[in-house]
């Protein structure tokens, strides 16, 4: 392949990542069908792949793709081949006056303030879809990822992802989900679903649940990009800024939390000079915006505020643990999550000593959701050892070692149990 063709393919990949969401969004508005819109956008991409290696990449590749997809849409409308539910209506408009129908299509493609993009986000994260389907569809339609890329990111077969996406599009069509931004109380509920999808995508990149790599930064970047776009489009919603703040600050530590051999490095042991200060500043600014907009902080903003306490501390000793306990108090009340309670116990130990943390942790022992959760006996063992109750601590570390599935962690826990047996904290 000649160099120019390679350049063109590289450019097409880049353009697709940046422009495909807007393209699909505009076309969904015209056709009323996400699946058809994506087909049209893909067709335009195929034309680009044929032409650009010879003609060169146009000055405004995004506009070129839009124009090409739009012509395809118009062709299809003229030929009456569109099988979606808009067919009759649009066909009628075309019969009534071809010229008058075409400017409307022009207007439909132009979306300077991103309303179509926002509508597309809400469709891709619609509650009629399963969580997996929302994640896959969002990455495909808004992240510009291929089915293969999504499959590799989540370590599932490509056919599974392809099926999920096909089924999701069919579900949306059959449910006749309108292409619109929900309003009022519905907006808050639907927004929660969009935020959850972005959060899930980020977390899968931040601490992968499966596979050899502990982090997959590309997924974090995709989530961050979607979050930033969303924060611009629904700028009055505090939790959007809370989520973006949380993701920016978490992402600032990406370089510092993996060792040379790919092993995880815990927060207290990280080289803080390796934290990305630009991302920290962006995160703190987003959190400030959330605080300005909200009376009491929501769950994402609270997590962002906790992350901010760590980000502001130049050394672990500088950490404002008292504030962190207050933030965890609020988060625990809001989420009622036992896992949050475990973290709250750790914060209390750091702020007010192991006895206060143990009190919280002891109340969790009978919690069924934590019966197999190795972190509860791990932190209880730690608190007990700090209090000099070594025999009880040893038993907790043994229990934790039996529960964890991570070999490195099991070794560490066994070592601590052995230390307790010798009376060392």
């Amino acid at each position: 392949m000649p160099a120019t063709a390679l350049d063109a393919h590289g450019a097409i990949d880049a353009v697709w990542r940046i422009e495909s969401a807007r393209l699909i969004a505009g076309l969904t508005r015209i056709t009323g069908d996400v699946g058809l819109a994506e087909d049209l956008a893909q067709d335009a991409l195929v034309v680009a792949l044929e032409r650009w290696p010879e003609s060169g990449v146009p000055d405004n590749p995004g506009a070129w793709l839009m124009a090409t997809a739009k012509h395809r849409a118009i062709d299809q409308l003229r030929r009456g081949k569109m099988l979606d539910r808009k067919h009759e209506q649009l066909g009628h408009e075309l019969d009534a006056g071809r010229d008058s129908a075409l400017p409307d299509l022009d207007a439909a493609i132009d979306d300077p303030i991103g309303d179509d993009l926002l509508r597309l986000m809400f469709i891709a994260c619609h509650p009629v879809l399963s969580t997996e389907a929302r994640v896959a569809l969002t990455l495909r339609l808004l992240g510009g990822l291929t089915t293969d890329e999504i499959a590799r990111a989540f370590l599932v077969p490509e056919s599974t992802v392809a099926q999920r996406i096909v089924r999701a599009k069919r579900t949306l069509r059959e449910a006749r989900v309108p292409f619109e931004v929900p309003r009022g109380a519905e907006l808050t509920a639907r927004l929660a679903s969009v935020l959850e999808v972005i959060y899930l995508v980020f977390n899968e990149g931040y601490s992968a649940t499966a596979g050899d790599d502990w982090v997959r930064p590309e997924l974090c970047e995709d989530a961050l990009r979607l979050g930033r776009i969303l924060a611009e489009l629904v700028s009055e919603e505090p939790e959007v800024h809370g989520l973006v703040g949380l993701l920016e600050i978490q992402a600032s530590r990406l370089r510092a939390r993996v060792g040379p051999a790919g092993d995880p490095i815990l927060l207290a042991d990280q080289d803080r000079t390796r934290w990305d200060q630009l991302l920290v500043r962006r995160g703190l600014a987003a959190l400030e915006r959330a605080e300005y907009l909200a009376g009491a902080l929501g769950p994402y903003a609270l997590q962002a505020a906790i992350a901010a306490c760590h980000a502001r501390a130049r050394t672990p000793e500088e950490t404002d643990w008292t504030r962190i306990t207050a933030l965890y108090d609020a988060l625990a009340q809001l989420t009622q999550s036992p896992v949050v309670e475990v973290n709250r116990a750790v914060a209390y130990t750091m702020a007010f000593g192991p006895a206060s943390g143990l009190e919280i942790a002891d109340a969790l022992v009978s919690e069924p959701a934590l019966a197999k959760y190795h972190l509860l006996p791990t932190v209880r063992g730690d608190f007990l050892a700090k209090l000099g109750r070594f025999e009880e601590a040893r038993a907790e570390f043994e229990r934790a070692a039996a529960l964890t599935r991570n070999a490195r962690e099991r070794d560490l826990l066994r070592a601590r149990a052995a230390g307790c047996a010798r009376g060392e904290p």
Partner: protein
Amino acid sequence: MLLIYLDEQALSADEREQCYRESTQLAHQLDVAGQYVAASPLQPASTATSVRVRAGKRVVTDGPFAETKEQLGGYFLIDATDLEEAIAIAARIPMARRGTVEVRPVVHLADLPD
């Protein structure tokens, strides 16, 4: 405004430290809930200076304005929707267990600086 009155001699140095810690924790909890405006303990009343202007003349005397057993020892300025909420917060102030917390609504003046 939550005004905290207590007998200054009632607390040992350790107890005062503990009191500051718990107050700091409460301030953070209120802040997270969007209810915090300001708070501070005050130095002992023995450090107070009272100022009056009479007939255009400034009269400055050492010591507090009133000699009573319980002195103003600190304050919390909070954002509460009603008296009930303010009372609930006042009861969480650690000094409420030893002294008295007076709950006083503030008068809102439109033209004050932020």
